[in-house]
């Protein structure tokens, strides 16, 4: 098991951080991620994070839910065990709409949550390495992965400090 080594730039101001991200990325450094106590507006764009494709998955789950609901009701009430309810036809679409709507929502919601857990690598009892506990309080922590032989730690240190980092630390994380 190899350990991963990160350089952590500590920032205490949102605006300084956003400008630093732009400059550090412009200098050709790849920022692994930024830990922040609260969501920062515009940080996704600044970090160049692509928008999630989760909505497409959600739409497909919704279609599955709708199809399942219609199949279930049409099969059950139309073929498997036809019953006359309120003098309506066996396959009475208006009566099926509320259930179809609910199952569409149910499939979409559960599908999205489960997909989100899977693509984010979240599972029960996961151990998440905390880079710096202050990122849960009042500091922004910018993590940059050190690639052996490629990254010039000294240069990175000055780059971070020049762009407003109040501290630069190193941290090793068990992979």
């Amino acid at each position: 098991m190899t350990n991963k080594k990160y350089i952590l730039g500590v920032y205490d101001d949102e605006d300084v951080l956003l400008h630093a991200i732009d400059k550090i990325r412009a200098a050709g450094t790849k920022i692994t991620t930024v830990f922040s106590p609260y969501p920062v507006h515009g940080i996704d764009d600044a970090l160049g994070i692509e928008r999630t494709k989760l909505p497409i998955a959600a739409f497909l789950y919704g279609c599955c839910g709708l199809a399942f609901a219609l199949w279930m009701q049409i099969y059950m009430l139309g073929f498997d065990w036809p019953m006359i309810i309120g003098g309506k036809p066996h396959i009475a679409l208006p009566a099926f709409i509320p259930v179809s709507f609910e199952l569409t929502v149910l499939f979409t919601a559960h599908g999205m949550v489960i997909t989100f857990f899977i693509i984010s690598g979240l599972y029960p009892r996961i151990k998440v390495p905390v880079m710096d506990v202050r990122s849960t309080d009042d500091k922004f922590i910018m993590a940059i992965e050190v690639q052996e032989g490629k990254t010039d730690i000294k240069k990175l240190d000055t780059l971070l400090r020049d762009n407003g980092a109040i501290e630069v630390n190193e941290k090793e994380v068990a992979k």
Partner: protein
Amino acid sequence: MIEESLTISKRTSNRFFFLIGLGLVLLIVGIFITMNSGGGHHGGGGHEEAAAAGGHHAITWVNRLFANLWLNNVYFTGIAVIGLFFGAIQYVAYAGWSVPFVRILQSITAYLPFGAAVALIVFFIGQHQIFHWTDNSLFDTASPNYDPIIAGKAGFLNKPFFIIRMVVFYGAWIYFAWWLRKQSLEEDINGGLSYYHKSIRISAMFLVIFGVSSSISAWDWVMSIDTHWFSTLFAWYVLSSWLVSGLAVTTLIAIFLKQNGYLKMLNADHLHDLGKFIFGFSIFWTYLWFSQFMLYWYANLPEEVIYFKERFGMYNDHYSWILLFNLFINFALPLLVLMTRDAKRQVIMLKIVCFAVLFGHWMDFYLMIMPGTLRGESGLGFMELGTALIFLGVFLTLVTRKLTSASLIPVNHPFLEESMHHHV
């Protein structure tokens, strides 16, 4: 620097007058066509007529003219009052995002005084053509026309009270629109927070009044056409139709201003939020449509289900396609087209949906008003097109005139800066 004043070229305002002129010509042509073909028409649907409302008057071009005037006036009045309603919501919610189009919302209320005049005139002249209950003999126990159901509603559905309600509602809406706009214009000159705080109080008062007046106006102006029939959620159904139309008009005006170099602070994020509202309220409209439909379909009581029978199946399927078309254009189309984030941020997609739902909700009011007034003898021809164009021309003339009368951006709005950085 931020202040922007709109100038409407002579050519553009001439185009609006041309719309009115064209509408008048089409209307007159339509009237002649209807006059010449109307005679042979009304013999056929006799038994259906009797089932509909009990009235046995022949349908002529006069009925059709008044039904059309009423339809368009209700539609455009709704759009206008939504400008006031949505603007008031922005104030009480302390909303910052809506600042770039506050003036558009204020301006579309400019139609209200004209709408009030048309409503009163049309009611005074054409009440018998539109409202079955205005026939006095229905309330007279000695008369053969006596209708105990309608007579039972006399405490509410009588002409003096109806006119009082109409005058009070239009009056309140016009007054509040003027009052809110006055605060906003004085804020432009003097600045400070006092006007904003006062606007919140005015808006809160208006919203309480609108809660009552929007419901009752929907019963009065639309639901009472089908006098025997009633629906407990009809007021919301009309309101949702108005809301979608009003927001579509606001969005379209914002887009056209932006494309002509105005509203520089308006960006894709503002349009995204407007798109969300159109998307959301389209689904809300469908929810109400279905809630109303399903209960009646399920219970299948003759006096209730007649409303849907008339609109689906009766009169030789005269209205059936419109009912299905409305569900498509007002629900399926906005749902599928505006579902993705990118679509709500693209001007072309928003334009397609806005024009579609504006037409769709006009057709929705058509379906609410026509079967009760013209039974199976309504049409979609020169008369409908002409009347709609006249009202559209008047609406655009009044709204653009109001838009040019002040800066397009409320320069001292306390949330101006926040709105510039609006980000979703």
